[in-house]
C-alpha cells in the first residue's frame, strides 16, 4: 500500500512562564493507506501533541519548531491556514477526541452538527447535508429520529462518541486520528465503540492513528504500534511483535507493568518518574530510569533504527549493525 503520512524530525515546544517545554524531540512517524497505527505511551510522552501537530492545531504558547509532516506528498507544515482548513482538516484528515460530550457544541442539536460537518466536507448546502444525516446516524448504530433532535448534554458518553464518529467518518477521510476515544467510557461501552470503529474503518478503508495509553486496545485494534516516551519515539513494530518481543527497556518495563487476567507474574513497574520536559535529561531521555544505561546513553540521543525486519528501536543497546529507520 502507498505511503500516506510521513512525519520526520517533528519538534514542538511550549513556552510557559516556567520555561520552555520541549514536548516533541524529533518525532518520527509513518503510516500507509488503510493502515492502523497505534501510538501508545504514558502521560507527557507527546502522543496527543503529535496528533495535534499533524492537524496543525498547535496554538501559542505552543510552536512547531521543526520537522516535516508529509501527507499525500505535501508538507502540511508549509501549507497556509486557509488551505489546511479548506482541504485537510475535516476533509482528508478528521479527528475524534477523548471527552465526546465536551467536544460537541452544547448549543446545537446533534442533527445540526452532523449536517454542518457533512456540508463543510462535501461543499454542499446545509439542506442537502441534512438529508444525509439519518444515514450517517444509522451507520453508527443510533436511532436517527430520536438522536437528531437531542442536544449533546442529553447523550450518554457512548452515544456522544458515536455521534463524533459519525461526524468524523461522514467526510470519508483518508486518515482518522482518534485521541483516546474510549478512555472516558465504561468498559462494556468501550468494547462496543471499538467494535463499531473496526467495522466502519474497514468498510470506509480509512487509515487510522489511534492514540491510547491502553496497550490492550492498541494491540487488538492496530496493525502497527509506535511507543513514545518523553517526546521521542522509542520503538515501532507490528502490534503483536511489540508485546511478544519488546526491545526497548522502557517498552519491556511498560509491558511488564500491565496486569493480565490469569498471568501470575509480579508487576514491577518502572522506577523513577517521567522527566521534567523543561530541563529533560541529556542524551536518551529514559537513561536515568534505565537499568541498562551506559555512558553513551547519557550524552547521545539514540536514533530510531530498524533492528529486525519492520521492527525499529531507538536505543544504544542495539546501535551496532542496524540500518537507519
Amino acid at each position, binding site marked *: 500500500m502507498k505511503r500516506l503520512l510521513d512525519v520526520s524530525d517533528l519538534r514542538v515546544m511550549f513556552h*510557559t*512562564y*516556567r520555561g520552555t517545554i520541549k514536548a516533541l524531540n524529533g518525532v518520527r512517524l509513518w503510516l500507509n493507506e488503510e493502515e492502523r497505527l497505534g501510538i501508545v505511551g504514558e502521560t507527557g510522552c507527546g502522543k496527543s501533541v503529535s496528533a495535534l501537530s499533524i492537524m496543525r492545531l498547535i496554538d501559542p504558547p505552543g510552536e512547531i519548531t521543526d520537522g516535516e509532516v508529509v501527507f499525500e506528498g505535501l508538507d502540511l507544515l508549509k501549507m497556509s491556514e486557509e488551505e489546511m482548513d479548506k482541504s485537510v482538516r475535516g476533509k482528508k484528515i478528521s479527528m475524534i477526541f477523548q471527552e465526546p460530550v465536551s467536544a460537541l457544541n452544547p448549543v446545537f442539536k446533534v442533527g445540526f452538527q452532523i449536517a454542518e460537518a457533512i456540508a463543510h466536507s462535501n461543499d454542499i448546502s446545509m439542506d442537502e447535508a441534512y438529508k444525509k444525516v439519518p444515514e450517517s446516524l444509522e451507520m453508527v448504530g443510533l436511532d436517527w429520529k430520536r438522536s437528531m433532535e437531542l442536544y449533546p448534554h442529553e447523550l450518554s458518553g457512548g452515544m456522544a462518541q458515536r455521534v463524533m464518529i459519525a461526524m468524523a467518518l461522514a467526510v470519508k477521510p483518508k486518515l482518522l486520528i482518534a485521541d483516546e476515544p474510549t478512555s472516558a467510557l465504561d468498559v462494556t461501552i468501550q468494547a462496543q465503540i471499538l467494535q463499531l470503529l473496526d467495522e466502519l474503518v474497514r468498510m470506509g478503508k480509512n487509515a487510522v492513528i489511534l492514540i491510547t495509553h491502553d496497550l490492550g486496545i492498541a494491540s487488538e485494534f492496530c496493525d502497527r504500534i509506535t511507543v513514545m516516551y518523553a517526546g521521542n519515539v522509542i520503538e515501532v513494530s507490528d502490534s503483536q511483535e511489540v508485546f511478544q518481543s519488546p526491545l526497548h527497556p522502557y517498552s519491556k518495563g511498560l509491558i511488564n507493568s500491565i496486569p493480565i487476567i490469569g498471568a501470575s507474574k509480579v508487576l514491577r513497574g518502572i*522506577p*523513577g*518518574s517521567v*522527566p*521534567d520536559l523543561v530541563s529533560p535529561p541529556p542524551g536518551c531521555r529514559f537513561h*536515568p530510569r534505565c537499568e541498562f544505561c551506559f555512558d553513551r546513553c547519557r550524552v547521545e540521543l539514540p536514533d530510531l533504527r530498524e533492528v529486525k525486519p519492520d521492527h525499529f528501536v531507538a536505543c544504544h543497546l542495539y546501535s551496532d549493525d542496524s540500518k537507519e529507520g
Partner: protein
Amino acid sequence: METEGSNIVVSRRNLMLEDWKHTLYLWRQNKLAMIGTVIIVFFIAIAVFAPLIAPYDPVKVDLSQALLSPSFEHIFGTDQFGRDIFSRVIYGARIEVGIILLVTVISGAIGIAVGITAGYFGGVIDEILMRITDIFLAFPNLILAMALSAMLGRGVFNAIIAISLVGWTVIARLSRAEAMKIKSLPYIEAIRALGAGNLRILLLHILPMCMSPVLVQLSLRMGSIILTAAGLGFLGLGAQPPTPEWGAIVSDGRSYLVDQWWISTFPGLFIALVVLGFNLLGDGIRDIMDPRIRR
C-alpha cells in the same frame, strides 16, 4: 522499599516567593494598575502623615479668616467658619482610611461567616441565610445605608456599621459559591473520614480557600465605600460637624457653590481621585488574577 527520587515535576521550595515575584512583574506591566497604586499610596501617606502636612488645625474656628479664596496661605481656601480647607481635606483622609478599614473588616467578617455557613451546610440553613441576604440586597445601597444610619443615629461609627451592613452581601455570595465548590472536593471528604468535625473543616479548610477571591472583592469595593460614606456625610447622616469627613466638607460648601466654589470642589476632587485610584487598582488586580489562573 523503593524510595521516590527528587526529579519530580516542580520541586522548587520557594514557589511562593516566585509567585510573588511574578505578581509584582505583572503589576509593573499594567500601567493603569500602577497609576492606581500611586494614587492609593499617596492617599494612605496623606492620612498617615496628616499632622506633618496640614498647616492648620482643621477644626479651629476663626471667623476673621472666613471664606478666603485659595491663596498662598490657604492653598484650598477657607470655609464659612474660617477653617483651612486644605488641612480639613488632609485630616479627612485619615477618617476615610479609618472608615474603609473598619467597613472592610466588618463586612468581610459578616460576609464570610454567613457565606461559608450557607455554602457548606446547604439545605435549610442555606435557604434561610440566602433569603436574609436577599432582603439586604433588595434595597439600593445608599438608601439602605441611609435608613440604617438614621436608625442607628448620627456619627461616623454608626455610619461605619450602616455601610458594613450594606456591603456584606456580596462577600456572602462569593464565599458561599467558594464553599459550595470546595465542600464536594475529595480532600474535604478525606478530612471528614479522618474524623474532623464541621467547625474544624469550616475554619481550617474552607475559610482559607475563600480568602483569595474575597480579598480581591473587598479591594474592588473600597472605592464604593468612600462614595457611600461621603454620601452619608453629605446628607448629614455620617460624620457630624466639625469632623472633616470629605462628604461633610462638600456639604458645608453647598450654599456657597457659586461664589466660594473651593469649599465643596476640593474635597469633591479628592473623593473622585481616590475612588478612581481604587477602581484602577481593582481592575489591575482582576487582570492580574485572571491570566495567572489560566497558567
